[in-house]
């Protein structure tokens, strides 16, 4: 049934109205896929200072949330305030004369924020809450930070400036929301997830704690389109 719907859609939109047989359509699909791959490779946005995530998150292993503090508290993860960069760099003699650091301190002298370009810019009609996702995957499920952030933002610790490597389209977000997770069988695991299952107490409803019981992310339109 699902595929039926997709088929109907495509026809109406005319996007893949390629005349000819199935072989031709396969070729078109493969070429499109190739274009997609090329399109996403090296999609590097030019920034006022080419901030090296590979040195900070990669070589030095700084937790993403050391700088992007607000990810656990707010809708946005936040470009760190200039103060945060200066906090460390005012004491790091070894890189004091590097050109990027000099440029950083120029901004600090002028008390002016660095005008970074936004790389993952969702449209205004989408409500994405970093807090909700970080609380769920990092604090409650205890996944490593680079895996949690990296799921959407890619392998940032190998990049200098941030690059958009995932499509972050609606369909892509929904593909994760539709993944069925088994409910935790251990009541202790559920405690941290009260924010997701506020009324569930596995001790009261042991049937919920079986391997067969699964749930997935929000499927309501209004959760993201508030």
């Amino acid at each position, binding site marked *: 049934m699902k595929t039926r719907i997709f088929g109907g859609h495509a026809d109406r939109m005319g*996007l893949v109205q390629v005349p000819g047989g199935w072989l031709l359509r396969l070729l078109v699909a493969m070429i499109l896929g190739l274009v997609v791959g090329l399109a996403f490779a090296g999609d590097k946005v030019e920034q006022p200072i080419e901030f090296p995530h590979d040195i900070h998150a990669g070589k030095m292993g700084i937790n993403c949330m050391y700088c992007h503090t607000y990810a656990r508290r707010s809708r946005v993860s936040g470009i760190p*305030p200039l*103060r945060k960069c200066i906090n460390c760099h005012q004491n790091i003699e070894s890189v004091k004369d590097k050109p990027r650091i000099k440029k950083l301190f120029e901004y600090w002298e002028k008390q002016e924020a660095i005008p970074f370009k936004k790389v993952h810019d969702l449209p205004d009609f989408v409500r994405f809450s970093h807090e909700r996702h970080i609380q769920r995957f990092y604090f409650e499920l205890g996944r490593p930070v680079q895996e949690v952030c990296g799921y959407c933002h890619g392998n940032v610790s190998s990049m200098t400036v941030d690059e958009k490597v995932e*499509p972050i*389209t609606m369909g892509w977000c929904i593909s994760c929301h539709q993944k069925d997770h088994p409910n935790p069988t251990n009541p202790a695991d559920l405690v941290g997830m009260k924010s997701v299952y506020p009324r569930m107490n596995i001790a009261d409803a042991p049937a919920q704690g079986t391997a067969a019981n699964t749930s997935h992310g929000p499927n309501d339109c209004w959760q993201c389109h508030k």
Partner: protein
Amino acid sequence: MKNNQRRDFLKVLGWSGASATVGACGYTSIDSGVETVKSYVNPEDFNIPGVAVYYASTCQQCDAFCGIVGRVRDGRVLKLEGNVESGLSGGKLCGLGQAGVQHHYNPDRLRKPMLRKDGSLQEVSWNDAMLALHKRSAATKDGRFAFLTGPVSGHFKVLVGNATESFGAGSQHYVYDPLATRINRAAAEQVLGSDVPRLALDQASLIVSFGADFLDTWVSPVHFAGQYARFRKASDSRPRGTLVQIEPRMTLTGANADRWVPIRPGTEGVLALGLANALLAGKLPAGGAVPPALATAATAFDKARVLAETGIKEEAFDRVVQLLRERTPSLVLSGPSAEGHAHGYSNAQAILALNWVLGNVGKTIFPPAKLPFPQIAPDSGDTASLGKLTDAMASGKVDAVFVHDLNPVFTAPSFVKFREAFAKVGFKAVFAQYLDETAREADLVLPLDSAMEGWGTHVAAYQPQGVEMTVQQPLMERLYPDTRGAGDILVELLKLRRPADYKTFGDYYAYLRAALGANRTAFSNVPADEEQFWTEALSHGVLHVNTAETKVAAKPGAVELDFAGASQAVDARFPYALAPVVRASLRDGRHANLPWMQETPDALTTIVWDSWAEVHPKTAEKLGIKDGDELEIASANGSCKVQAYIFPGIHPDVIGIPVGQGHETLGRYADGRGVNTFRLLDPVFDRKTGELALYSTRVGVKPTGSRRVLVKDEGWKSGNVKTQSGRKLVVTLSADKAKLSEEV
């Protein structure tokens, strides 16, 4: 099936592939590398991007001065709500209050000072503007200065007073409010012992309001609406409250009344004395007292005379008398439609005196708490000030005038000739947010901070309990670098003119903080430490002044009634009375450039973005007028062309035209829209107070032959509840068929 499956599979592949490609081509809404995102440089800990913080402040949209909180996110104020700590707003806020953000973000706000050079206003730097202000002020001779403001209170009033004094004896501060309730205050002072008594609508079983629109535009609507909700809730000790509204034109409060009694305009005092006559004939309710001279005056107003002069129906009169006798305690209120006559003061007294007769004083009417600091006590202003200032300017007694937050060129009736007198003054400085009609006439225009950007303290004239001083603080940084708070401008001026007192203050903030801190023992429940006191004052937004208990007046004040000339022969050229309708959304017209307020349908007519003339269906039939016909409405002092709206909620001899529209130069949402009703007003003044009698203008009505579409929310047929598209949406029964005495 196999074939179909393969086809479907490929379609899926193609579809997801296409969406990915489309993403890379830029055909989705997801951007990358387009918008700039700037971090903070060195923020406070609590400044979390994306998370809102609430700051307390004071609403400045009308003179109720409700306490508000503003929701601020990422350094921008987004929405206003009532401050629960404010006894006035009680945590609620009216639509006009909500629209305060539109004055802040308004695209037509003045961004730079302007100085008149070679006949035209030109933008100048703030430095040059202040130099001009100081130079011209220094050149002004003692006693030849005037400061015109709207209602003032708190520390700004102190600054205005000191600034005026610095120009020598004879210089005057004029407080003008086009919608002032001065007549009401004078009558209340005389009869009830205090000019703004504290009212308890929620303690009454019956409210009889003579045109006091307490739910929409009268005194403190947000507060009274809260009390009204409790008034309407029956309890074990009290039945559900009954509301009777008596007025020539239905207000929102009238629309909520159980009984709406249309009355011939100006005869409210006659009715009040007739009610007194009837009540005094029987046993007075417990606690009732008779104000001296009332009994004598009332004897002349027997029922027959009252019915003949007021035009109300006998059944209505009898029923109101019965309600007043049975439902105690009650509350009788006087409003602008009763007061806006040459004998308005007498009308108001006769109405308010009924509260003594009914024993309401001490049950639903109380004296207000006394503020021990008269220098910050509210001055609510009046309309007579405008006349006095105009006379002074016209006779060449004023060389420099400052105008703050007022638009008298717009609100002055034509007969006042304000604009001509204003032009005679050598130096005119106008402090304004917009280049409105008055600012355009100025020599120096100083652009003001919005209410969301400024500091201040305010003491509302109507206080619910004790005396509250609300604090106003900026809800965000200035939008434009070259606007200033009026307080800052005056502090700078005073540093030059009264250096001994003011040179220690850097700006208005410093002055406020010092003044409040030095007097913090005057407030209750505040920390002793100055820093803590200031932090708490700002976060709560309300300071409670320590006040002494005030005792209810033991005896009623005398009534001084003077109805001479009340019923005069009507000039045949102007057979109708004009009701200048005040709308909560526009008030005196200052909010006409707020699109939310223009878009909000009028509560009674549902008309938007325009003016209209309300005509009773019988009058319309007589004159052959249909909905939308353009009428020329002319008084002896002005005329306008406005389209007709057939409206049953008005006395047949009255034409109602809303005030506030008709701007020429306020901003893009206001200009060229509707008519300025203020222009038409006749020079009739209340005999006792000298106030402009707003409801005494007489007009003639003539269709011009044109028609215009009236844009309204209620559909294409107005004033006719029978037309409900064939469905019973609102079940109605005409008044002559309904047995009203059994209903209410």
